[in-house]
Each structure stands twice: as C-alpha cells, then as structure tokens.
C-alpha cells in the first residue's frame, strides 16, 4: 500500500495493515510521518521534535 508524502509528494510505502498513530519515514525527504486515518490511509507530518543539526 502506498500513499503520498505531504512534505515532498513522493510516494511512501506503508505496511500491509497500517495502524493509526504509526510513525513512518519518507524515503525521499526523511520527514517523519504519522498515519492519521485509515480508509483511505492518509499520513500527516509527525510533530517535529526540533532537532539540532549543526548550527
């Protein structure tokens, strides 16, 4: 099953039986995605823990 990443619009593969609140990573943009509804399965950006990456 696939859906589209809300951040970068690339396709994201979900497991056979996605669960609400499941967290996935977009392979393209590495955004953390959360399954927010089933039938149809939709994902949203997971709340972003502000991560420092080098300033």
């Amino acid at each position, binding site marked *: 099953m696939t859906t589209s990443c809300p951040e970068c619009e690339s396709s994201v593969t979900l497991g056979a039986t996605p669960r609400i609140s499941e967290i996935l990573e977009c392979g393209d943009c590495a955004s953390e995605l959360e399954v927010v509804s089933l039938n149809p399965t939709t994902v949203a950006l997971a709340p972003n823990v502000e991560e*420092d*990456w*080098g*300033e």
Partner: protein
Amino acid sequence: MSEKRTRVAVAGASGYIGGELLRLLLDHPYVEVVLATSDSFAGKRVHNPHPNLRGRTELAFSPHDSLGDAADLDVLFLAMPHGHTMKKMPWYLQRAGVVVDLGGDFRLRDPAGYPRYYGTEHPAPELLSSFVTGLPEWHRDELRTADRIAVPGCMATAGILTVRPLAEAGLLDGPVQVDARTGSSGSGAAAGSANLHAERSGAMRVFAPTQHRHEAEIAQATGLPVHMTATGVEAVRGVQVLCRAPLAGGVREADVRAAYRKAYAEEPFVRVVAQRTGVYRLPEPKILAGSNYCDVGFSVAGDGSQVVLVGALDNLVKGGAGSAVQALNVRFGWPETTGLSFPGLHPN
C-alpha cells in the same frame, strides 16, 4: 582608570563564549572576574573545561543561581543559549550596573523578527530598544554611556562589518547574498550527533540554506535585503562571509576601497585585505584565531556589475567575547585595545 578593578561576572562561563570571556577578562588589567557560573561544572576549577586557563587563576565555577547573591557587581556578561535571557532579563538587569548579553535575545530592534527568526514571540519587547548594539565600529558613541549592550552574532558581525561601509556609501544597488562559513565552535559546547567529530570533521554542511538568524541582524544594520546561507566547514574557530551584491551604476573598484578606508582607517580591529599577489589575498579566518581582528576585502567582477566582498573573524573573539570586551573598554573609557592585542598566528 581607577585603582580599584571593575568587578565582573560571567554567566554561562563553562561554554565556549564564556571560556573566551574568561581568557580575555583574566588578563585584562582593569577588571577582576569575581564570579563564573555553570551548573554542570559547579565547584570545579575553570581550567577543567577550559584547559588553556590552567595556572592562570584559582577561580572555580559557581551555580548559576549564585548570581542572586553576588554583591557589588559592576558588569554582568551573559553567555547562555538564546531563548533564556529573553525571559529572565529583568532579573539579570538587577544584578549589575552594566549588562552585556552575548546571545541573540536582544539583538533585533523590531519585535517581529523574533517569531520569524527565533520561532517565538519576544516576552519583553519593550526592553529591545534599551539595548545598544555591542559593535564599537558602528555604535561607539552610544556605547560610551550604555548600560545594556547586545553583542551581534558571529556571522552577523562579519557580515555587518563587511557590507555596511558600502551600504552607507550608497554603492550597492540591491539585495545582498551572504554565503557564511563557520567552524564547529560556533555551535557551542553541547555534544550531539551533528557535532560528533567523525560526523562534523571535513564537513561542508549547509545547515541553514535559508532563514539563518543572523540574516536579520545584517539586514537591520545595513538597511538592505539580505539572503543568507550558512555552511559548517572544517575548522574549530573561524567565520568567513562571502557577500555578493549588485553595484550601483558607475561604481569602480577604487570607490569600494575608498568606502572601506573611510569607514575603517582609524579602526584598531578592522583591516582591509585585498591584495593582488601572495597567498593570503583576501580575508581568511585561519590566521585570526584568538585575535580580535575582522579582516574585510573585495573584488569587483570584470564587467563592474557586481562586487564580491569577503569578511573573516574568529567567532569567539571579534564574533563574540572580543567585541564584548572592546565594548566594555569603550563603555569604561579604557584604551579600546586593552586586553585585545593578540595578533593571531601564522602558520596555524
């Protein structure tokens, strides 16, 4: 110059800016460091995290809260992560007659910059205008009487010193593109995976392709639109800015040099570096480590339409602790270079 030394305290003294303040202030002839705060190193000698200070002082760290008990402080330097002093500034202002904040919380004059660049409303916007920018080259007169000083960011200092003379002289005609490069000390002493040696070593990490906080400071100081990127490169100390802007019609390279001369001829810590020969033709931070210089230089493109400006400094000195001490010297009427004469090393 009074017999009695001016009593200073450093809050956040275990960090990189705090350590650099200690290095400069411990050797400063007119001040006495009476307090250095750190919670994580409380009770330990300052040479524990700052091994260069071994044998230079008996000072040990006090917990941050001990600031509340400190009596007779003349000056308080704040060297903590941003987001902290914006909340507690009224309390700090009561601790000493002169407060010098090295963080970003009181650098912007327009409160609207805080939600945009710091991701938060400023909790004390009414205090913003009471702070003087701690950059003597452009705020010397105000600093002579300032009791609240906000030192600009490291890349902002480089950017402002590099761009502002041309902006003031009306030589630029449009937005400035700033490509900033920085060493790893710019992100402080807190360990994390991005700063792990094996990850950070040899990096060319574009950590801020857009929206870096210092962009707002450069725009504020120059009056020009600024687009800034920031890249972490292999270095511990050192910031370099490479700035590009369209030249106003008819401007020649000699005009650019003249604008710099006019702005900086008398400045003790800004040097114009734009050579035709030799290895070091334009400013480079590697020879500036430990020094309070900001070197600035330029090159005009063949067709005269664009100018490339280059600035370099040590982020912990002229980009932080050094500018702070220079501002202190101005504020107290001491010779401006007091305690800041180290020239830097070559090779290095």
